[in-house]
């Protein structure tokens, strides 16, 4: 699922300078699950904004709302419909897709992102998410025992580890992170399929998906 992280408050504050009535919009799907933009975080950010405004005296009225899924036009209009009239700016706590959906629907109102959408990933444990898929459009997982080198190897190599792996099979750029290719080696060795790693792989076709991507279902 999509993982995002809230922007530092300083950045958000500077975005909404000059606007008096702001609607903070959360989203109930991916960003809720990764604790970034759910109803709770909407409450926290709104509380911070109110505290900030009351501390330096400028009155700022904050409205809170949370959409089921910010990337669906119908859901956005259903949830925000009447709340938007006398709003000067919208602060979206959805992922990048949510921000742009809202911006498209309410073109006359400025829409600001409160989150940085970081990667597509999975929870390693509660409260910790790691990037595991880069949505490169040409999946390579069948040849690496289910560990993606394009994203989990810092250099995205298709042929084996680089020369810089640290002791203990850690990645060159971060001693905390495992080198993807060492993980791949260990898993393939366990499965007795090391021939997959020994095979030479051609240079990757980076244009398999013409960017920006578009997918049209056959029946559409």
């Amino acid at each position, binding site marked *: 699922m999509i993982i995002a992280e809230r922007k530092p*408050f300083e950045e958000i504050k500077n975005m909404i300078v000059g606007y008096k009535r702001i609607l903070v919009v959360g989203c109930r799907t991916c960003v809720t699950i990764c604790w970034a933009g759910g109803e709770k975080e909407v*409450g*926290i950010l709104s*509380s*911070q904004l109110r*505290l*900030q405004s009351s*501390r330096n005296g400028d009155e700022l009225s904050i409205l809170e709302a949370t959409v089921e899924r910010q990337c669906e036009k119908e859901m956005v209009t259903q949830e925000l419909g009447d709340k938007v009239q006398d709003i000067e700016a919208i602060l979206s706590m959805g992922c990048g897709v949510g921000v742009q959906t809202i911006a498209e629907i309410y073109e006359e109102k400025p829409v600001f992102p409160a989150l940085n959408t970081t990667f597509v990933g999975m929870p390693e444990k509660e409260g910790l998410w790691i990037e595991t898929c880069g949505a490169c459009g040409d999946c390579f997982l069948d040849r690496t025992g289910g560990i993606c080198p394009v994203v989990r190897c810092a250099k995205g190599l298709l042929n084996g580890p680089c020369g810089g792996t640290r002791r203990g099979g850690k990645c060159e750029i971060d001693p905390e992170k495992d080198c993807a290719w060492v993980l791949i080696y260990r898993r393939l060795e366990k499965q007795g399929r090391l021939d997959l790693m020994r095979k030479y792989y051609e240079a990757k076709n980076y244009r398999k998906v013409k960017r920006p991507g578009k997918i049209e279902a056959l029946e559409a």
Partner: protein
Amino acid sequence: MNVDNNKIVAFCCANSAYQAADKAGKMRLCYPDNVRIIRVPCAGRVDVVHILKAFEKGAAGVLVMGCQEGACQHLTGNTRAKERLKYAGDLLKEVGIDRERVKMVNLAPDMAQKFICEIEVMMEKIKEA
């Protein structure tokens, strides 16, 4: 702050801190009037939103008082509260409020003196600002 006064909100865990507060009363240990004690089942129940809301409503300091490390009836209640207060501190710092204004306190049910002195420490903090 709508009216800047020095209200201190103390979220007290029913298993330990609340009883410590009662004991302080029984021992007639005096402490200032501006402390408001809110009873919660466990320190782990206090959420960051509650803390921010308390500041929004004019509190000058927030204390979350739970059981001592390792003696929590619900095992992880007080440790989670401690982590959460670090997060709350960061949020407050972002808004310009001194992060010392929110603090985790570990009490056993009979630690009346510590309850009082933690309040006094917070009062000093508030007076400084």
